[in-house]
């Protein structure tokens, strides 16, 4: 029977919420899933909050309870540093679930002198590295060790059955079976383990037979050890700083081949590629390239070459004109002394798919190549593409994402208060302030009851007066009034000028502005 050590972080969903969302976990906090409490902080427990309570009941017991929604992804993400901290001391860690991980006790036990010493070191390590409280339990088998961790016990070898016998049957985590056993008068794991195994199997089925083995401390399952992610980065150091593009291109190709070999050796391909260069002045330049296809060796080489081309050219331009781009740290990029490629977004390489009709997708590849090249010249954020989304104003309607980034389009939903088509063909990035006057030359406003103070007659666009020949509105929008920082309360007007122009005007906080031109 293998000795297993389980590291258990109590109330992990609460701790994870604290780590990632900064919720003070020393105050009453409860994590809810489907309106039931799944975990709560110690402070909440002393107020009487328990697992499984409904939200209303939990809030009745503790009115100042902070409620957090359950998010398994958050729990897993927050647990990653803890696993890394444990792996520093002992390799071969199995993540049982976020908040609990298991490892073989023999190795660390021998290395640190005793199991107790190893447990102490691991708890200390986790506390120092991640500021997380952990408990360690050691027993024969993962199930028993997990229960031992709850009380921080080190169960001596061969006494696991004895340790389990006094534990409540609820620890089996099989609600239906536990309910049934309780009604039969079986209240502890020991009592359950005392039943004959063949009869348990015959009467309750396979799952109960497995539970019976666990209750008896016969947990034969070997650990499913986590494979640490392979190190895929490639780095090259140059004795002579790279100043010229052709030298950089040569280096890029070599490095790209190496990266590609390494990826291929692991049976992987990458969809995002990070390039980091270190210059002789101590500057560091980073950029991540995205690609919705898979990057081949030539593709990587091209990207690195464009990338370096852009940097070196900018370095020269900076020398000439004193122009200082914002992304570059340090006085100017200078020669590159170290180059590092790190694949990001690695996927299983299942072979590249070619187009069915030979040159299908050739146009797309050509366009992609060109746009990536322009991104190399100007930066990845210089080439954009629009994604339609929801919104009430023409500016909100479209989200711009850098080229090559994922285009996540929102499902089409009605937007009450949205402006009807046609949309303005020109939407100034920043609204242009104007003034609107009535026939007597007085300013036009809108009352709290959305009534116009006077009919608009003239429009003052930076000093030039234009006659208004037609108008419609006010069409009010009161957005996000519940969030004071993002709230926006405004009215819109469509206005036709005497010379045939049509404008979309906005009045917010007493100030008029042009939000769109129906150009």
């Amino acid at each position, binding site marked *: 029977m293998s000795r297993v050590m389980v590291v258990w972080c109590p109330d992990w969903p609460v701790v994870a919420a604290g780590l990632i969302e900064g919720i003070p976990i020393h105050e009453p906090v409860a994590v809810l899933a489907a309106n039931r409490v799944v975990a709560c902080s110690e402070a909440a427990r002393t107020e009487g909050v328990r697992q499984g309570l409904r939200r209303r009941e939990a809030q009745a017991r503790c009115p100042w309870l902070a409620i957090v929604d359950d998010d398994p992804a958050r729990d897993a993400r927050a647990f990653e540093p803890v696993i890394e901290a444990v792996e520093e001391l002992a390799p071969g860690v199995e993540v049982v679930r976020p908040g609990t991980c298991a490892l073989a006790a023999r190795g660390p036990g021998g290395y640190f002198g005793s199991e107790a010493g190893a447990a102490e070191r691991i708890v200390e390590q986790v506390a120092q590295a991640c500021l997380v409280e952990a408990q360690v339990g050691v027993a024969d088998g993962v199930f028993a060790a997990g229960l031992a961790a709850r009380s921080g016990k080190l169960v001596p070898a061969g006494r696991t059955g004895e340790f389990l016998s006094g534990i409540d049957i609820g620890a089996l985590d099989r609600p239906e079976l536990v309910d049934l056993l309780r009604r039969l008068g079986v209240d502890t794991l020991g009592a359950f383990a005392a039943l004959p195994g063949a009869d348990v199997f015959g009467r309750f089925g396979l799952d109960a037979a497995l539970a019976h083995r666990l209750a008896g401390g016969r947990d034969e399952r070997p650990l499913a050890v986590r494979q640490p992610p392979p190190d895929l980065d490639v780095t090259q150091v140059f004795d002579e700083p790279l100043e010229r593009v052709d030298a950089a291109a040569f280096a890029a190709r070599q490095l790209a081949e190496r990266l590609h070999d390494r990826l291929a050796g692991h049976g992987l391909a990458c969809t995002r590629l990070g390039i980091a260069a270190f210059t002789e002045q101590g500057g560091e330049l980073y950029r991540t390239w995205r690609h919705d296809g898979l990057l081949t060796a030539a593709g990587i080489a091209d990207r690195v070459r464009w990338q370096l081309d852009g940097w070196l050219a900018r370095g020269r331009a900076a020398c000439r004109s004193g122009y200082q781009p914002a992304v570059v740290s340090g006085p100017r990029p200078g020669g590159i002394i170290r180059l590092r490629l790190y694949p990001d977004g690695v996927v299983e390489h299942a072979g590249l798919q070619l187009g069915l009709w030979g040159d299908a997708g050739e146009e*797309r590849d050509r*366009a992609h190549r060109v746009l990536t090249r322009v991104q190399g010249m100007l930066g990845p954020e210089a080439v954009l*593409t629009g994604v339609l989304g929801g919104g009430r104003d*023409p500016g909100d309607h479209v989200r711009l994402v850098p080229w090559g980034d994922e285009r996540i389009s929102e499902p089409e939903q009605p937007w009450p208060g949205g402006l009807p088509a046609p949309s303005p063909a020109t939407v100034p990035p920043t609204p242009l302030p104007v003034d609107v006057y009535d026939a007597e030359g007085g300013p036009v406003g809108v009352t709290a009851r959305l009534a116009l103070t006077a009919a608009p007659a003239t429009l003052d666009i930076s000093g030039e007066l234009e006659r208004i020949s*037609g108008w419609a509105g006010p*069409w009010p929008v009161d957005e996000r009034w519940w969030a004071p920082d993002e709230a926006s309360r405004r009215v819109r007007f469509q206005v036709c000028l005497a010379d045939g122009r049509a404008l979309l005007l906005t009045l917010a906080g007493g100030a008029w502005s042009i939000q769109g031109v129906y150009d």
Partner: protein
Amino acid sequence: MADILALRRTPRRRHPGSASAGVAELVRATGLTGLVKPASAAAGGPDGVGERVLPVLPELRALLPAGGLRRGSTVAVASTAPAPFGATSVLLALLAAASAAGSWCAVVGMPALGLAAAAELGVALERLALVPEPGPDWPAVVAALLDGIDVVAVAPPGPVSTDLGSRLAARARQRGSVLVPYGQWSGADIVLRTPGGGWRGLGEGWGRLARRGLVISRRGRGAAAHPREVTLWLPLGIEPPPPLVEDAPVLEAAG
């Protein structure tokens, strides 16, 4: 089906003469398979991609001598006086049909372009790339884009010298892309203007901007030398309204 037919027809059309066979051998020997194509391949299929002429909206066909955007040509949209209004819509309308048919488009130097309007006209946003701030080196960006994008619209930040204009036009001709300068540009094959037009549906405090008639005129060289005018009614796909009595706009409730 059309692809299969094309595949079957191709060998019959090509003569299995010695010159052709020699070229094929050379192509295979030097590993250029797929890169060298017969000249007839440029004629392309019926889907619009790869054709010598990119499709345009039916209303605009009369303005363009080829009945569409001929690859390698320069079609300018003037946004200057007498009436600078409507030029952006003309630009988007020019891109719309080609984009919808599968071509790639790019717009350089127009940070205020209304993409919602573009989508309403039929421009496929997933094949539309924007370079809103190309910076001082915009001709290099345009030249790079002409390498692989079918239609490149560019709004230059200032006056463009004839030399630069003809160099970019030559690049477009060489690469088989369409250059669509927006604003002042000399040496374009065709220049489109919007001398007039107006909106309907808006009254004094009621209605909404509903229909728009956009008069587009062309001036150009060669086959396009004869001036011509058409009226484009937006939004597309609705019957053009009958000529209205003055000051009797269409009644319509707002949104």
